[in-house]
């Protein structure tokens, strides 16, 4: 088990290095740190002096090494627009996005698992048939359209739920949370559902097909032959085996959800990292862009690694051989 964890972590580090290299190259070639610091109104001569001072005329690798050193210390450059450390800006926006993803993940789990299991056990039920045919439609609707339609129905026409922003947030030790206020929670519903809706058809299909495969196995038949109660067979014997592939997919999908936060946050004017990213693009704020790349890249790598390791715990056969 230990060897397995070590190997996974080494792989993660390797990927992070690649990401940092890409990020740094972008920053170096495209960004303009001088402008970031002092704005536009500098003469070319002053620029050159500043460039030398900042070490911008040093060889590539030297600058890269400096970049890494700074990065590890938490300094990813200055955001031109916000006039603050890029990392600080990202961190201040992070809670909004993280809460959104968290709520979406919860909605995803609590809706798709029961439906997936149900449609696997009772495939000919009218509800199962309805859900399955609906899923192709679901996959074909882009998330921003779902978000817009949800807003249209629930906010504009019915006026039940708010259509933009986070609502009231409470600052818990530096974390602006919308989870602890009723207003904040109301604001989380529509965006959360929009985000979850991307993955739902996929998940329901996945859980259903995995469960159906498991239900045909010999060991499930043996469980029936032992006279166990069917709920135990479905929810323990079958379900635990379904979890394994689902967990791996889930881990990857969390990453995809992050990508889609950019879209969702745009629709709901949600002041999170995705929204910040788009603003940075509009303002050509390269430092912030690169910082976003590095941070989000790190999050992906982290989540993937954790999921792989978790998988090792849930699936006992992986531990012994250390291989999948």
């Amino acid at each position, binding site marked *: 088990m230990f060897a397995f964890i070590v190997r996974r972590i080494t792989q993660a580090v390797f990927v992070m290095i690649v990401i940092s290299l890409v990020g740094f190259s972008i920053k170096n070639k495209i960004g303009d740190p001088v402008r970031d610091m002092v704005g536009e109104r500098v003469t070319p001569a002053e620029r050159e002096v500043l460039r030398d001072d900042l070490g911008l005329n040093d060889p590539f690798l030297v600058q890269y090494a400096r970049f890494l050193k700074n990065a590890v210390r938490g300094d990813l450059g200055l955001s031109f627009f916000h006039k603050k450390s890029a990392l600080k800006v990202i961190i201040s926006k992070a809670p909004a996005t993280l809460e959104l993803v968290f709520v979406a993940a919860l909605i995803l789990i609590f809706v798709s698992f029961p439906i997936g299991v149900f449609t696997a056990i009772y495939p000919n039920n009218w509800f199962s048939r309805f859900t399955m045919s609906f899923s192709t439609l679901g996959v074909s609707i882009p998330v921003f359209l779902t978000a817009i339609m949800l807003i*249209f129905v629930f906010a504009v026409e019915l006026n039940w739920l708010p259509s933009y922003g986070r609502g009231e947030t409470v600052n818990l030790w530096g974390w602006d949370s919308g989870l602890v206020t009723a207003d904040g929670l109301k604001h989380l519903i529509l965006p959360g559902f929009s985000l979850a809706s991307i993955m739902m058809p996929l998940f329901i299909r996945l859980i259903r097909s995995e469960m159906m495969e498991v239900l045909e196995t010999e060991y499930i038949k043996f469980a029936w032959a032992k006279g166990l109660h069917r709920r135990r067979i479905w929810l323990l014997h079958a379900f635990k085996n379904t979890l394994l592939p689902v967990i791996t997919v889930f881990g990857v999908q969390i990453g995809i959800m992050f990508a889609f936060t*950019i879209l969702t946050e745009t629709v709901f004017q949600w002041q999170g990292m995705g929204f910040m990213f788009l603003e940075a693009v509009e303002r050509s704020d390269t430092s912030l862009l690169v910082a976003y790349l590095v941070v989000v890249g790190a999050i992906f790598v982290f989540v993937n690694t954790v999921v792989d390791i978790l998988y090792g715990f849930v699936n006992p056969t992986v531990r012994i051989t250390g291989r999948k």
Partner: protein
Amino acid sequence: MKRKWEQFKKSYLLYSFKRDPVAILSFCVLVLLLLIGFAAPLISPTNPYDADSIDIMNSEIPPVWSEEGVEGFILGTDVQGRDLLSTMIYGLRLSIVIGLGAVMLQALIGISFGLLAGYLGGKIDALLMRLADIQLSFPYLMVAIFISAIFQIVFGIGRYADLAVPLLVVIIGLAEWPVYARTVRAAVIGEKNKEYVEAARVIGLSKRIIMVRHVLPNTLTSVMVISTIQVANAVMSEAALSFLGLGMPVTRPSLGSLIRSGFEYIFSGSWWITIFPGILLVIFVMVINLLGDWLRDVLNPKLYKG
């Protein structure tokens, strides 16, 4: 050529197609949409790109069947005064062109890489697949958004808008080639050990000829299976990028850009600017997906799970 047609007519593919009403319907709708898209200049009521024909005073007119509707504008007008139906048709055309173009690029890169990696193996395989894996560990949309963002900064917004169509093709093509590479590689590895490959090697054919003329055609089933999904994905990616403002500009809008421009006006009641393009987009993507599902079931039910 005629023989191939005869073979096709008798094939299992055609047989099961004729028996599946969903497949037939989807196919017809798809062909219809493609025709509409390509024939845009011919059948569209107005030319939305002709600046002279647009009057900003005409903006936000509702569809013809509602109270304030106007005769010439069947589905109403958008925020700039363009006839919505015409703009939608042109937008559909853009979506088709970019979608198909991007997939062809993806396929080109992906199939070449997959073929090389699968057949040659060894270091090349390891290198290419590492590259693919790293890129795959990031959601393709993120990659596409990021590349677009960089391009927009590099080219500047004006030039980016001019080059939008080819740039989008490149962006989406680059974002998703690993899917093709992985699939082709797996198929090639499966074919590599079959006897006809050994026979070709024994005869003394060069590696290139074996790869391209013998192995490649046999991997095409898997390519076909994923291609429909990839086209659907590409169209949705373009819509997403345009919606974010990183895609087609407002002057030459695709369906995604239209949805974007209409979004703010939903609150003031001009719902048609967003809804109609939205419906068209969904129908287009859905028929592609339905056909893809059917194709997958027919060619190999277990090939592509997700």
